[in-house]
């Protein structure tokens, strides 16, 4: 019986972490265009007869790059500029031929351009708000046409995507090359920068050539008059071993070269970003038009989506919480029995709790890879403290007389623990588990950031796309699940807390 459980658990983990592998695993970064390109690749390869898994929104460039290097994914869309200037910047590659050689050395290859150059650009508002106009010193910005022109306005507030702030083709070198005087830089989510620009909270932001929101938010794109930004030709990067494993996949991938121009990509972006359409539908439409295919996109109904999110979320919570219970109760017992050691132990576990949850999730990626595993490990670590502490408190709060009586009647240590001490601490232990469960349900939504699935997926996707309804698809069920968890443990209290402890004293 126990073995069956373990097998079931392992196979569930395998499904979640992707051990049951498809012919080809497509990856994509955590922004809209990358998702669409990933869907295009996935559907096109699939229409050529291969089995495909698309692991969407894996993270930023380094995360996806490492996933490709480690073989977790086989192919993903990227840009030549990103590869040369960011991922392989220390090699100072001059052109795409050198880039190809550098990739080959790492067992990787790339296609020719998919057909568009998605270069970074710098944007300012066309019409500044009153607040922004004060910083510009004028409300007529029509004189500002090039990035060089920004030198005249030292007080501007810049809002750049986190990645752009740190990249070797990002803000710092840009500032140097153009001798820009601005120092007030706020790193933020790219999609929020548009809102900031429109509200006058920031004056300068980074944009992409294919950004659909440039028009909507009335952004003025400045000319890169020093030719600072390299080319960002969109390409597909894939593992060289894919040529032997699945040559038909590689030739399919190659057929996508030159098929997507800047206008097409901008339109596809606009349909998802602004029209709220599913990336899968947009990608399928593109392929159907371009290649005369009849792909029906697998856009799940809201119920299917909810069922999937719920299942994934439940699995994250249940696995991590059970593991935490199994570990934390014995640790709590140890902490109660060895007071000094216990203090050290509690302090150490308390320290874990202070690590920002998102940081912990991301830190675990190099150790556990992407997907459910790092999320489960992080949730496990977070669940430890409430259970350990409540187990310890529950045991140390047992009145001395009862402790002494249990010893005095001659019960051996473990029987004492099992028959007397743990039942008496049951209420406290259960309360600890309940706290852990509720926190766990909430924290598990961060799994949406690292491809762990669950309610975090719609929450973060909605956050990025600025679509509150999509966020609700995750936020509401997550809240309900937290309430349900609370309820379940309240019921468990009726079963687990001995009746004698729930009585009011008679006299």
């Amino acid at each position, binding site marked *: 019986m126990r073995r069956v459980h373990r097998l079931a658990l392992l196979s569930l983990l395998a499904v979640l972490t992707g051990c049951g592998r498809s012919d080809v695993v497509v990856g994509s970064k955590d922004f809209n265009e990358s998702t669409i390109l990933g869907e295009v690749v996935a559907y096109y390869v699939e229409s050529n007869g291969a089995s495909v898994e698309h692991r969407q929104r894996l993270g930023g460039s380094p995360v996806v790059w490492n996933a490709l290097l480690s073989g977790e994914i086989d192919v993903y869309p990227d840009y030549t500029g990103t590869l040369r200037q960011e991922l392989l910047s220390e090699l100072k590659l001059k052109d795409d031929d050198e880039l190809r050689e550098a990739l080959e050395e790492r067992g990787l290859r790339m296609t020719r351009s998919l057909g568009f150059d998605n270069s970074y650009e710098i944007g300012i508002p066309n019409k500044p708000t009153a607040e922004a106009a004060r910083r510009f010193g004028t409300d007529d910005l029509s004189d500002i046409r090039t990035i060089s022109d920004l030198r005249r306005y030292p007080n501007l507030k810049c809002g750049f995507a986190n990645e752009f702030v740190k990249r070797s083709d990002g803000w710092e070198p840009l500032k140097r090359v153009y001798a820009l005087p601005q120092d007030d830089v706020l790193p933020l989510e790219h999609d929020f920068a548009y809102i900031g620009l429109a509200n006058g909270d920031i004056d300068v932001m980074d944009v992409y050539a294919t950004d659909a929101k440039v028009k909507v938010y009335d952004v003025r794109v400045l000319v890169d008059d020093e030719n600072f930004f390299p080319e960002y030709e969109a390409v597909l990067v894939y593992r060289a071993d894919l040529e032997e494993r699945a040559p038909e996949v590689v030739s399919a991938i190659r057929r996508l070269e030159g098929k997507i121009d800047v206008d097409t990509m901008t339109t596809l972006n606009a349909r998802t970003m602004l029209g709220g359409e599913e990336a899968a539908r947009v990608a399928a439409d593109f392929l159907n038009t371009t290649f005369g295919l009849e792909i029906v996109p697998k856009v799940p109904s809201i119920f299917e989506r909810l069922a999937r999110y719920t299942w994934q979320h439940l699995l994250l919570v249940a696995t991590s919480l059970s593991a935490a219970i199994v570990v934390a109760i014995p640790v709590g017992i140890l902490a109660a029995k060895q007071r000094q050691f216990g203090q050290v132990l509690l302090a150490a576990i308390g320290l874990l709790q202070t690590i920002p949850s998102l940081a912990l999730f991301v830190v675990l990626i190099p150790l556990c890879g992407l997907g459910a595993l790092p999320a489960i490990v992080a949730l496990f670590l977070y669940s430890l403290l409430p259970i350990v502490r409540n187990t310890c408190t529950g045991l140390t709060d047992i009145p001395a*007389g009862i402790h*002494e009586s249990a010893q*005095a009647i*001659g*019960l051996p240590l473990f029987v004492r623990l099992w028959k007397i001490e743990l*039942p008496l601490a049951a209420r406290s232990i259960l309360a600890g588990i309940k706290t852990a469960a509720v926190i766990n349900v909430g924290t598990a939504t961060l799994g949406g950031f690292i491809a762990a699935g669950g309610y975090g997926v719609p929450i973060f996707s909605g956050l990025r796309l600025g679509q509150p309804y999509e966020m609700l698809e995750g936020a509401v069920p997550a809240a309900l699940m937290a309430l349900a968890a609370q309820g379940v443990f309240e019921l468990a209290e009726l079963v687990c807390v001995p009746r004698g402890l729930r*009585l009011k004293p008679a006299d």
Partner: protein
Amino acid sequence: MLRLEGVSKSYGGTTVLPRTDLELQSGRVTVLIGQSGCGKSTLLRLLMGLVEPDEGTVWFGDEQVAGDQVLELRRRMGYVIQDGGLFPHMTARGNVELMPRFLEWSPDRLRDRVAELAALVDLPVETLERYPAQLSGGQRQRVSLMRALVLDPEVMLMDEPLGALDPMIRAELQRDLREIFRRLEKTVVLVTHDMNEAAFFGDDVILMRDGHVEQRGPISELLERPATDFVREFTTAQRAVLGVTS
């Protein structure tokens, strides 16, 4: 039967019991009396092996109360504390039957023994189905007594067993206890701070002060021939308040 041989005990630098030799007589009630903090409870705990002596040896017959045999020896001693120390998550019966069940007694033997003890401590059998929270203070002590007696121990160690009871119930239980002790002829060590209670139970009274024995003997001897000024003060102070009956 119970013997301390050069035993001392201190907690965190404070000596609770300086080097002490003491022998307790079999088949009799020995009363340990003294002010709170005089070491009488520590003495009791040493006898049960609940605390280990810093030096010296505690003997139970010719066995040492230490190491692996402590559990075995504790089962040959019954222990009753002030508030009973009943396990609140078990019924009265559950408390009494815990050890016999652990030792895998037959159901018949267990049933007979529990009925016998309930009669002995004068507790209605239906009371046994209640949880400690549903019992009165006196009933709790009677159940506690049953639990201590269930394995038919050779020694009973009682730490202020009646200290938390109101006077009427206390007097009633005192009489019952003395009767039970007499009938069972067990070796009893009873800790109290109450001269009246000591006089009521004690064949052999040990008056303690700061961890050492101030005077030992029959109660009449302590009253009539106090060995030190402290003994005189202690006995007269309490007599003035209560009036000793013996």
